[in-house]
């Protein structure tokens, strides 16, 4: 007797085909069909209680809400990076984001652009220009080594993961001094992180958020947001057309892992 083929079983299990007459005559095939149905049912039931939950739904709405303008603050949502942010860091970020939620809107609209911020945006725009001289490598260690060679210090680099990738780095001038910068692709678009010796106060940003024991300065210019923080002897300024809280989070990660 010829038994049913695998694909025939599949059609029957899924209800894509009726049971053939052969099943009535073949106990082996009947048993195998029953087994496959049992496995399918058990697999279904193992996921029955798996639900996204309201917390994730809210996180999604805050992150992917269509009505939120690019510069508006987020809640505790974060870009998706699967392994790298600890629960403790997440709690820190949530606190920071809550502060951003309360503090940034008023400050954002009251903050007038100044030449320093215009220069930072110009650096970012230059980094994205195709003709710009750029050290391209996705390996943060190689980028850090390159900048160390060029600048004399090793800047902290962001933690990378899903949706976050480093594109490359380059040397720029800011207020007449050499500075290093690197471009990070985030789920919301590319940003530049500019590393400079100048203090954050010199950047003319009037927004301030306290998080993780540090002060994060916020500003905006020409459809770009920016957040700056002092880590060791250098200021790290994240610039891009992405929300302030995403920039803050990336800098928070720098603060957690910064080598400066």
């Amino acid at each position, binding site marked *: 007797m010829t038994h049913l083929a*695998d694909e025939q079983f599949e059609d029957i299990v899924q209800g894509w085909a009726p049971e053939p007459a052969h099943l009535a005559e073949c106990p082996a095939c009947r048993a195998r069909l029953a087994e496959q149905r049992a*496995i399918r049912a*058990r697999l*279904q039931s193992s996921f029955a209680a798996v639900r996204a939950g309201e917390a994730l739904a809210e996180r999604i709405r805050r992150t992917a809400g269509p009505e939120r303008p690019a510069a508006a603050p987020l809640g505790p949502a*974060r870009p998706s990076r*699967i392994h790298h942010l600890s629960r403790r860091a997440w709690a820190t970020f949530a606190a920071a984001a809550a502060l951003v939620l309360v503090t940034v809107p008023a400050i954002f609209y009251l903050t007038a652009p100044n030449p320093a911020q215009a220069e930072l945006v110009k650096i970012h725009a230059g980094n994205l220009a195709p003709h710009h001289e750029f050290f391209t490598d996705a390996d943060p260690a190689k980028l850090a080594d390159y900048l160390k060679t060029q600048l004399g210090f090793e800047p902290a680099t962001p933690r990378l993961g899903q949706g976050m990738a480093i594109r490359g780095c380059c040397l720029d001038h800011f207020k007449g001094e050499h500075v290093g910068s690197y471009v990070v692709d985030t789920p919301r678009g590319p940003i530049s992180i500019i590393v400079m010796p100048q203090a954050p106060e010199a950047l003319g940003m009037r927004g301030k958020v306290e998080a993780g024991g540090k002060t994060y300065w916020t500003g905006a210019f020409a459809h770009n947001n920016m957040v700056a923080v002092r880590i060791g002897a250098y200021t790290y300024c994240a610039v891009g057309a992405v929300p302030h809280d995403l920039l803050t989070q990336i800098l928070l990660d720098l603060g957690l892992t910064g080598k400066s």
Partner: protein
Amino acid sequence: MADKKDFESIAMPHLDAVYRAAVALSRREEDARDLVQTVYVKALERFVSFAPGSNARAWLLQILRNAWIDELRHRKVAGPTVSIEESQPAVADPPHPPETVWSNAEDVLANFSDDEVRRALGELPDDQRLTLFLVDVEGLSQEEVAEITGVPAGTVKSRTSRARAALKERLMAWAKEMGLSGRVR
């Protein structure tokens, strides 16, 4: 062309399905939440190209699959250019001789917790895992799964069959370890 103001009403009803698939792929709920967030961010970015009235769940699950491939690339587990198909280890088609069929499958399977069943699924190669999940758990059609996984419909059927056989092998091995092998024809 879809209007972004409709994004929530179209995409959010499928959040549970996307999350379940993310759990099946990533195997960890914390990772799954991050993966789902990435999916919805990408979906919003691409929503202008979503055809109103088309299958939003399949569309989101396809984004999920691609996001998972991106994640594998970032982890460098699968190498910089590897596809999800190539990332899976070579698994020979398990034979189905009648003598290996559980005669009391439901009884044996009832001894496993939900976590254990999901863990057994999680040990399958990525494409088998996703295909079996989409077919058995989400009840998608061959055509939908073919579109999501980027393979012909016939491949979906054979892959589902292989995946269920592989899942059974794992559960059977555990059952033996637990002394639950029961009757085997």
